[in-house]
């Protein structure tokens, strides 16, 4: 997907006007949904999360400062996701390996999988299986292209925590994909 962090030239547009709620839903809905899906790994949950994000957008649009819509939406989406995982924390997590549909094809190499065209789903399944706080940091960094400083600001955690979460998330992914 289009990376929107500071490493991308599309990060900000000083001429951007504050859009209406409907314009956000119409113009940025696809972006919100992609981020929501990468975080949840599940379409029904991505739909719920997208609706929650739009609700927060409607309430918070007055505080939005033009120039960083995708960054603002990324932060809202990630925080809404982390909030939902905290709320659901009392529910037991489904162990990754107990669900046959979610077991990775461990004997398939990355190159072969890429050629076969099925790597993205396996990667998404693996992403879904790592800890939510690691997942949020990894998505913000690797999928959306935000810097550590931006992620620290989005998640309101120290930069060192960001680096640790990203690395531990990647390490877990490596183990799941190997």
């Amino acid at each position, binding site marked *: 997907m289009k990376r929107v962090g500071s490493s991308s030239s599309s990060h900000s547009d000083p001429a951007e006007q504050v859009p209406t709620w409907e314009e956000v839903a119409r113009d940025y809905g696809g972006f919100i949904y992609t981020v929501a899906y990468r975080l949840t790994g599940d379409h029904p949950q991505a739909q719920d999360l997208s609706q929650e994000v739009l609700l927060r957008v409607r309430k918070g649009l007055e505080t939005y400062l033009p120039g960083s819509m995708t960054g603002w939406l990324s932060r809202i989406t990630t925080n809404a996701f982390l909030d939902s995982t905290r709320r659901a924390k009392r529910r037991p997590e489904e162990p990754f390996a107990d669900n046959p549909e979610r077991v990775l094809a461990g004997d398939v190499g990355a190159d072969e999988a890429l050629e076969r065209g099925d790597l993205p789903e396996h990667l998404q399944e693996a992403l879904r299986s790592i800890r939510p706080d690691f997942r949020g940091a990894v998505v913000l960094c690797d999928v959306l292209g935000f810097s550590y400083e931006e992620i620290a600001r989005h998640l309101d955690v120290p930069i060192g925590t960001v680096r*640790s979460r990203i690395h531990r998330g990647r390490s877990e992914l490596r183990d799941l994909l190997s």
Partner: protein
Amino acid sequence: MRGRDDDRISGYLDGELSEVELSQFKNDLSEDAALRDQLDQIAAVRGRLRTMGDVAAPFGFFERIVNRERRHRRVGALMGVAAIAAALLVLVSATPVAEPIEFVVGIDQLVAQHATASADMSSMIELDDDHKAHILGEADLSTMDLTVRHAVRTSDGTDWVQYGRKDGTMLSVFRQPGTLAAGWMPDDAEAMEMGGDDAWIMQRLGRDVLVAEHDSMVFTLVADDYDDLMDTMHHELPDASGGLSDDLSNAAMVVIDLFSFS
């Protein structure tokens, strides 16, 4: 070496190490084959993550959210005005309410009645040379009261009050004595609860319609479609910056918000 949990690996790949860390890490790399392996593995995962593409939402997903939000705003407006309308209708109606009888509300007929009377309102919106819209006549953008256009009792006992809204649209409230016949509900009507009573909303001829039954009276509200009005005017003024004048647009939104229960 710090091995698998050495988060300097990710910091290095992301260009997020300080100069001191970077120098030390490069030294460690040159001396530690296991660390180099870890670096390669994490780099591979990182690279694969960065190839993940967009994910499409189900077809029409966001359109449905937007439409639902619009509908809630309209229903909120209709519901708010219903209370005012009911109070005014008491004044309009001088005769006792008839014994309740079951009937099927003639929605299309009421909408047509509303539409015929609303046609005159088009002359109240004028565009100036700057493509700004102005409301002519007695509508006042600076106050929030609705203007009663007319109030009548028709020969079949239906009370009808029509209001002018400051966004240039009209709203009709029909009150008919009786109760709704079983199975009257059109297929496209959406049921909802309004103050403890059942109500149904639907669209007819580009108008929003709400039907509610309360105390052996059937209320049918018909409102010009605010969004259709906006869309039409924007369509007619494709090159005009801003389209509608701020005054008109803001006033319309205030009207919507004022009568919203949300």
